């Protein structure tokens, strides 16, 4: 199977460890992973902030870059939801790029979907001896309907103690440019989410989106809580061998 990694611009620029973790995890599971270097960004920030023209340009670029792969895997529920749920609404049927969008978008998977639905693996052979809580980000929960896929994977990680997050389905307050356009409400939501995380007593907060983790993690860090954030891919990539040299990053 020819699998393309869609890293996403946020991961590419700020969280390269997540990309490395996806590569190592998928190879461990026998996939041939390619990284089409012409990829950049799915266009979500532009579309959701009201700059549709720029967003559509990026969407067309995405479909050109990822044409021809059997599967496109993204370590981001939000960017995968953008491509799968929003792309088809961006371009009218019959107009330029519509056919390419219809062809590529069904092959785009968020990481946990790809593992469970395509590879049919729910135990990836990971080892991570830490107390972890999982935040289901809005777009993975209500956009992609990931359901319990991520937590099923986490439950099968050896050594990992998974503690449920109170009010897990509530938004953390990131919301892309919402975080700077409405900073007061965003921060208030982030504070409540951080408190829920602290209530679990977990040492690691895990999610399928680094953008939300960046927001909650930035709040936790500002409060000097000592809770660290990790992307789902990084925990799933951890093995007994890798843990001796620190975690996946």
């Amino acid at each position, binding site marked *: 199977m020819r699998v393309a990694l869609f890293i996403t611009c946020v991961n590419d620029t700020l*969280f390269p460890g997540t990309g490395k973790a996806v590569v190592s995890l998928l190879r461990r599971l026998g996939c041939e992973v390619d990284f089409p270097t012409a990829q950049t960004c799915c266009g979500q920030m*532009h579309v959701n*902030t009201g700059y549709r023209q720029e967003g559509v340009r*990026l969407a067309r670029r995405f479909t050109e870059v990822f044409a021809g792969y059997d599967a496109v895997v993204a370590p981001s529920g939000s960017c995968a939801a953008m491509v799968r749920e929003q792309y088809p609404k961006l371009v009218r049927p019959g107009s330029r790029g519509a056919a390419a969008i219809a062809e590529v978008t069904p092959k785009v998977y968020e990481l946990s979907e790809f593992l469970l639905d395509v590879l049919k693996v729910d135990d990836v052979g990971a080892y991570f001896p830490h107390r972890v809580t999982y935040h289901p980000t809005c777009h993975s929960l209500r956009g992609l309907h990931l359901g319990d896929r991520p937590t099923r994977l986490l439950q099968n990680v050896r050594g990992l103690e998974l503690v449920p997050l109170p009010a897990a389905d*509530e938004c953390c*307050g990131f919301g892309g440019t919402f975080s700077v356009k409405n900073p*007061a409400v965003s921060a*208030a939501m982030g504070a409540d989410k951080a408190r829920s995380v602290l209530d679990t007593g977990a040492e690691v907060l895990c999610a399928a989106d680094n953008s939300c983790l960046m927001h909650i993690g930035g709040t936790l860090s500002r409060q000097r809580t000592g809770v660290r954030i990790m992307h789902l891919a990084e925990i799933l990539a951890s093995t007994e061998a890798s843990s001796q040299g620190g975690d996946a990053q």
Partner: protein
Amino acid sequence: MSATFIGMPGNFPQNAAKAVQNSQLRYNLRKATHTIRGKRANVVNELPDWQELRAAGKAIKDDTLRHLDRYLVQMEEAVTRAGGHVHWARDADEANRIVTRLVQATGESEVVKVKSMATQEIGLNEALAAQGITAYETDLAELIVQLGDDFPSHILVPAIHRNRAEIREIFLDKMRPVPADLTDEPRALAEAARLHLRERFLKSKVAVSGANFMIAETGTLVVLESEGNGRMCLTLPETLISVVGIEKLLPSWRDLEVFMQLLPRSSTGERMNPYTSMWTGSTEGQDFHLVLLDNGRTNVLADEVGRQALRCIRCSACLNVCPVYERAGGHAYGSVYPGPIGAILTPQLRGMSSELDASLPYASSLCGACYEVCPVAIDIPEVLVDLRAKVHHAPAERAGMRVAGWILNDEVRLSKAQRLASRFRKVVPKRLPGPLSAWTDTRDLPEIPEESFRDWWERNERA
């Protein structure tokens, strides 16, 4: 008398920034919204066919909108046949003039009112007051707002921002007569409202209402309520004037079998609300007038994406579940329609020329909780994003987004930008200047890595 929202200064982020620091408001809203969320979830989960009802509700409303002209004419005929009178109002002024004229024709100078979003939207109470007619709100929450000279902050429970102690103080201060030993027990407060309004109900000659639904096929109007103030207004006065938005139609009587399940469970979280009144034309000898209100609705209808907002049945489930509404409160939206539905309805009804209205499509983190609970499946995030594309953007933001788009549309440019960031990673300040301080005021920045993923890939995989 509560003033109208029209022309309210400021913008949503500024209004919300004040509200999030108001501990009383935050506490009241958290408590109330979490209570109702739980109740709604229980009674919705009880129905095995909720999603089928939701799909039917959505389709019935879409069909209504598709053939609204036909259903409006049908409604007019049915009401007229049943002895009622139908009036048409293009906008708020026209509707207010019609109602004022109808009240004046009765010779009365007082009207009792059932809670109605449409009459709040057009500022009817203020228009009547200008002509010397006093409108008395009879819904408990509306009464609290009216007595407290306050703004409504919720579609269903306009005084949701007030707790029992504050309500007691408002009653002691403004309500006459008022029991001297009034406690803050909800039961005692409700009893005080009963005593306060009893005489007024029994002697009122004219009532003004809205309606939750109008049935085109039969000409029937439907009002759902809890307290019995609605029944008092709809039943006892000799003249009844109902002001109803044109989108409130349902094609057939049978359609109520869907909406009488969707609405109570979504709004108050009950299997059924205590009282629903349904009447057709001049019932039991009343003089009945129906005022059909456009006031911007046909503009909304013309928008292919935005028209789904007209499916709204004003249940307020989206407000109760919205994390932004819960923290910002209803007043921040500067409209009688607050919360997620307000953020898509207000800018479409009023346009986006004011700073406040232009900020409303951004009053959402696009978390999608509103869409999930909406009983008529209005994709609120989709409409918000669509409105964001239509609003006027500030020049500085536009320039920034253009540059970002230019960089992101070329992998070489993106790579160069990433390397530039990595080179200066150690000197990026913890607190950023200008608009970026909106992030660093409350959150630390993530560390910028030594190299981007793509550079790592080039180094390791291309070798």
